[in-house]
């Protein structure tokens, strides 16, 4: 009797735990619908455009920057101007309205992440953002997950999920060890 109850309780606990783990994965798993079906695969993959051609602020600012509508129109006034998605773009341009892109990559409010320093150090965009040039729809699995935390707790997690602190630290440490860089490991550099 007691054994049965014990097994039952244990089973329920495990089930609940598994369910919790399954549900606790944060971050947008699938790419959300964007106002314009912009494809990085076409731009960065097929046409091999430099990332910083559009995200031009990355080398001089904390933010990578979203290209202005006029920059998009710089090419698309002529290029593929007949495609429906490009016409949507022209629509925004003509109405003098910005495009309400949905943000995919985000670090928490208390983290200061400068793109500039990373570009200067020669870190590729893909290091953090993944193989963007293959993505028709950008998606990201980032941030802490409870599953990862719990695996960590029992010492099983080998790698951290992207854009978590451990992930940043891991890269900084290895780069410093391997390439003799001076990537800071000072807490206050990112948290202030």
């Amino acid at each position: 009797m007691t054994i049965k109850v014990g097994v039952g309780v244990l089973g329920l606990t495990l089930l609940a735990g598994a369910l919790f783990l399954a549900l606790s994965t944060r971050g947008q798993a699938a790419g959300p619908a964007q106002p314009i079906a912009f494809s990085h695969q076409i731009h960065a993959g097929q046409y091999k455009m430099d990332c910083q051609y559009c995200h031009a602020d990355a080398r001089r600012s904390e933010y990578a920057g979203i290209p202005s509508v006029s920059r998009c129109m710089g090419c698309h006034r002529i290029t593929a101007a007949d495609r429906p998605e490009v016409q949507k773009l022209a629509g925004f341009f003509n109405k003098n309205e910005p495009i309400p892109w949905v943000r995919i990559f985000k670090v928490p409010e208390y983290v200061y992440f400068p793109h500039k320093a990373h570009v200067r150090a020669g870190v590729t965009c893909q290091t953090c953002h993944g193989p963007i040039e293959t993505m028709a729809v950008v998606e990201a699995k980032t941030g802490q997950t409870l599953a990862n935390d719990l695996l960590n707790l029992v010492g099983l997690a080998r790698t951290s999920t992207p854009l978590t602190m451990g992930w940043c630290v891991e890269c900084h440490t290895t780069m410093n060890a391997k390439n003799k860089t001076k990537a800071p490991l000072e807490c206050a550099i990112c948290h202030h």
Partner: protein
Amino acid sequence: MAGASVLGIFAHVDTTVKAIRELRAQGFHDFTVYSPIPVEEIETVLEENRPVSPVRLFTLIGGLTGMLTGFGLTIWSALKWGLVTGGKPIVSIPPFVIIAFELTILLGGLSTLLAILVLGKLPAVRRSSTYDPRFTVDRFGIAVSCAAERAPAVSRSLSQAGAEEVRR
């Protein structure tokens, strides 16, 4: 060879001791004594030929593990990410001694508990067949395992020693 067990229930310590002595004299060694409290006299008789309880070994190993864990954890984690506080060295032994001490006690204590459980064969789901509820009140008991044919002899000597009741 079929086995049997004989249980003698006693009301007094001296009769219990006497029974144990007699059983020993008759060459019985495989018996269990029940008592509501630990009794010095009974223990003295029983411990005569036994080695010291290995509980202390558990405690020692647990304690040492705790101490090593304490120093290991503190020193390793301090070195893993060397953050300076208050101008103190990264590996500051004096405070780490405290952690090591506490873990020594903690693991020492927990392994002692483990010892009670392992050595006392606890937890046990079922009572043993020879157990009687009165053993937690005021009765002592001797349960002897023996070959079936020797059971009457055992019963007899238990009764002679002063058992209130003998069960087979």
